[in-house]
């Protein structure tokens, strides 16, 4: 099976995220970068499906040259091909991003054939627009379902599970298709040392794509007003057990 997984390079912040002085970006001066978590699971899922079905995985990202790091990371856990749709590193709005990705995928498919399955992350960890995958798939004329936490391949189709209260919805899509996956669909493997070293040799296909900006513009980022919680000390030692159980009871758990 020929699988494409789209990933986004995002900063890996702690509990408090700082914003640059101009308010236009996360201050990543002391932060590392990572693959947005849903997409990290997407890569893992793609690799697992490829391993099961004997296919291979292409991983694609839109971002600055440094985003090659995320392509290599994907390669270190089993992706075969890397594609970078290069930007100057500024934040692209969802429409522009989708237009560029669509053009890149069309080009890849023109050269190498249609991807049987395209995986997107449900939403990016940073901007969280909830739409790029849907826009790309509409443009490609391909079905997509979001919120996926389980994928089984069956013949020329996939069964996908979407978590709802108390269970799952099941979707059945004929290939080619796309899915927006969520963290929890799997526990992504870490790269092995050999995998990491092999990923250094990944050849990355780079696209420079002119895409028109959309109609949503970032003005500034800021932190919400913080609420400081005061810890209530219920007591010391086993004598505090009834007070602790009171808390559980209030939450309706006892």
């Amino acid at each position: 099976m020929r699988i494409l997984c789209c990933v986004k390079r995002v900063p890996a912040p702690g509990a408090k995220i700082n914003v640059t002085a101009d308010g236009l970006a996360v201050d990543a001066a002391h932060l590392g970068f990572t693959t947005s978590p849903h997409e990290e699971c997407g890569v893992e899922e793609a690799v697992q499906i490829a391993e099961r079905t004997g296919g291979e995985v292409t991983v694609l990202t839109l971002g600055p040259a440094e985003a090659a790091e995320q392509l290599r990371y994907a390669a270190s856990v089993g992706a075969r091909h890397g594609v970078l749709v290069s930007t100057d590193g500024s934040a692209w709005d969802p429409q522009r991003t989708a237009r560029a990705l669509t053009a890149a995928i069309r080009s890849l498919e023109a050269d190498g054939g249609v991807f049987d399955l395209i995986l997107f992350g449900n939403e990016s960890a940073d901007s969280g627009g909830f739409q790029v995958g849907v826009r790309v798939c509409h443009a490609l004329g391909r079905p997509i379902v979001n919120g996926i936490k389980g994928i089984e391949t069956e013949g020329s189709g996939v069964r996908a599970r979407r978590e709802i209260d108390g269970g799952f919805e099941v979707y059945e899509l004929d290939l080619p298709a796309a899915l927006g996956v969520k963290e929890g669909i799997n526990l992504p493997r870490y790269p092995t040392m050999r995998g990491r070293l092999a990923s250094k040799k990944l050849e990355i296909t780079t696209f420079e794509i002119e895409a028109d900006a959309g109609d949503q513009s970032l003005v500034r980022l800021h932190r919400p007003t913080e609420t400081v919680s005061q810890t209530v000390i219920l007591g010391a030692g086993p004598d505090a057990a009834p007070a602790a159980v009171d808390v559980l009871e209030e939450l309706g758990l006892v």
Partner: protein
Amino acid sequence: MSDFPTSAKCVVIGAGIVGNCLVGHLTKLGWSDLVLVDKGPLPNPGGSTGHASNFIFPVDHNKEMCLLGVQSANQYRDLDLSVDSGGIEVARTAERMAELQRRMTSATAWGVEAHLLTPEEVAELCPFINTDVVLGGFYCPTVSVVDSLETGTVMRRLAVDNGCRVLANTEVLDIVTEPGPNPGDRTVKAVVTSAGTIDTEYVVIACGVWSNRLANMAGAHIPLVPAVHQMADVGPIDVLAQTGNEIGYPIVRDMDTFCYERQTAGSMEVGSYAHRPIFHHPDDIPSNEEAALSPTEMPFTPDDFDPQMEQAIELMDMLGDAEIKYAINGLLSLTPDAMPCLGEVPEVRNLWSAAAVWVKEGPGMAQVVAEWMTFGYPRVIDVHGADIARFYPEERPDEHIWARSAEHFNKTYGIVHPAEQWESRRNLRVGPYFSRQQDLGAFFFQARTWERPQWFESNADLVERYGLGEREVEWDNRWWSPITNAEHLNLRDNCGLVDLSAFQIFELTGPGAVAYADRLAVNKVDVPVGRSIYTPWLTPDGGFHSDLTMMRLGTERVRVVTGVFDGGRDEFWVRRHLPTDGSVSFANVTDHITTLGLWGPNAPAVLGALCEADLSQAGSPYGSLVDVELDCGTGRPVAATLFRISYVGDTGWEIYLAWDDGPAVWDALMRVGADYGLRPTGGGVYGTSGRLEKGYRLMGAELESEYNPLEAGLARPRVKAADFIGKEAYLAAREAGDPEVKMCVLTVEDLHDSRGRKRFMQGGNEPILTSGGERIVDSHGRVSRVTTAGPGPSLGKHLLMGYLPAELAVAGTDLQVMYMNELFPVRVAGTGAVFDPDDARMKS
């Protein structure tokens, strides 16, 4: 918070391994009213302790680092928070195998059990090591893995149980100082925290990578830089998991790749000191909230680690298929000279540093600082190399800290020669003759910040004249030249001119100057004007703090001349004990005075050509100070003070000059001296061969706070009436009778090693052993070792110095010295000079 401590005896900032152990040790020593503050949560506030690899290799060539490492390992053991995993340093190169021989030597010196292993023996201990790439190993069974977090918790609880208050999640915002008792002094007043202000008498900064930032708040410096040490945790690995232990296999240090492999349960932690130096300014370290992991677990930069992965896989193939579960750019502290920063900071009274200390030496160094604060000096061992007062102003800026730390980071597992010189930050301080010396092909050694010629290529002709040659083994020849021996012999035959501009010179003036000088010195400073003394300064416990000369320049004026390695510590000592009644003023006049040493049988004739003064022993007796005018042919007489003294064993003078007059005098002496065989002469003669032949002790080598003047052979027949620091302890030592050990000079009787090559001990703490090969240890646990080694060209012998028990400190006693893990026969020459023992050449 109603129970916020608004005052305290002492505030310790930083609850890592050091701060926690410090409040524990202070408590044990009777301190109370302590407050421990950390901006992070407990037990892991987010500093370097929290991600430390937590293993201790107890062998180091450096005495302070080694013994405090052993001491720390024992403290962890005593708390039952330590496992002896054993550890192996593996060698991939022949050069490293030689280094392992040197490590065996240091292990013997410090009494740490160690064995050399063949590749097969390495594989027996660690079956997963690829013996194809290993030439051998150095195995130390007492390598231990410790629980530094829990140890910190236990020590903190000990303090808390005795009243120490702990403020976690409380950031220190300022350290407030106020004017001290003397002009220019500052003293600690209060610590401003995010939870309130604490008035306090003492503050200790134990903040690891943040320490300099905290010191800066008080206008002080703790010269260290937060530096990255990369670590990756890979697993799971079956063979490790099967041990069922946190640590079941020895730690492996892959020395030639600057990496280690340390088991953590089912995983292997691979740590590296091989990558490019990556430094961060303390202000750029994220807070606990901002950091993705902890503040000191910075984002991993995998490109820097890739070469180490390949090498790790090469050594242990199983690592290749293990998953990289956790990888960080962990921060630790580096200093410009790779030694910790301990003690009271020179800039602010009662502000102490306990920083640049790693987990492996944390408990021991905390004990050192606690003792220092309690007794006025550390007791566990001498720590002059870690004393924060050692730094000169040029060593405190970031530019210096970063450059030097960058230079030595990759030497963490490097093979570092005892005489190795720095490449960066040279020519910070040079004498007024520097360009002349460059023209003469001077090879400079840097003493802290000062450049000193070690030898002059212009004297290469003398090598042939004296029939000298290079040393046979490259290691022995490194940072050495036969020219130095040639300069030595020329000085003995003719004379030599030595640049002593690096002398650190202080002056005490005022009505209380002489009385205060007497309070510092063991020997009587209150001598007639124009006389000088050579004297120890003692610690309160009667050990050596310093060893220097003091000159009575006037009724109310005393000059102190000390060596460049101790200038910072001595200046601080003088300022710190200065009377507070205004009776004494202190001035550092180093920048204004240059000193030239002129010695050798022709020295009087050479100097006589420039002045009219009576230079005979009668007119200028040994130890005298004579003011003269020198005629340098410039048409302007140059004022000079001639100090008749010798550290090299031949007659001559230290000539004290105004800095700007130096070049004219140098030129005149060189011109006049040409007819007398005068040669510029380097520090190799002044600091090593000349003094060794005379058995002269050097502060920091023979003289340490662990030894007293009786043991060093520097006690005078009588004790002066005036009180002085350490007098009580000194008197008690004299009462006790003959000292247990005595400083001796030894001759190496055969330099040939088992391969028939002549070897030359370097003075790197080589152990002196009995003829039966046993270590020699006194009742205080002090080991007999080489404190200085070097050539005695006039004697044709290689010379060693070291303390020996009194019964062995007898001329003719045959002993052995270990060098590069081989034994060489040595013989005790005596406790004094080997060359010209009656000092006829100096005093006749």
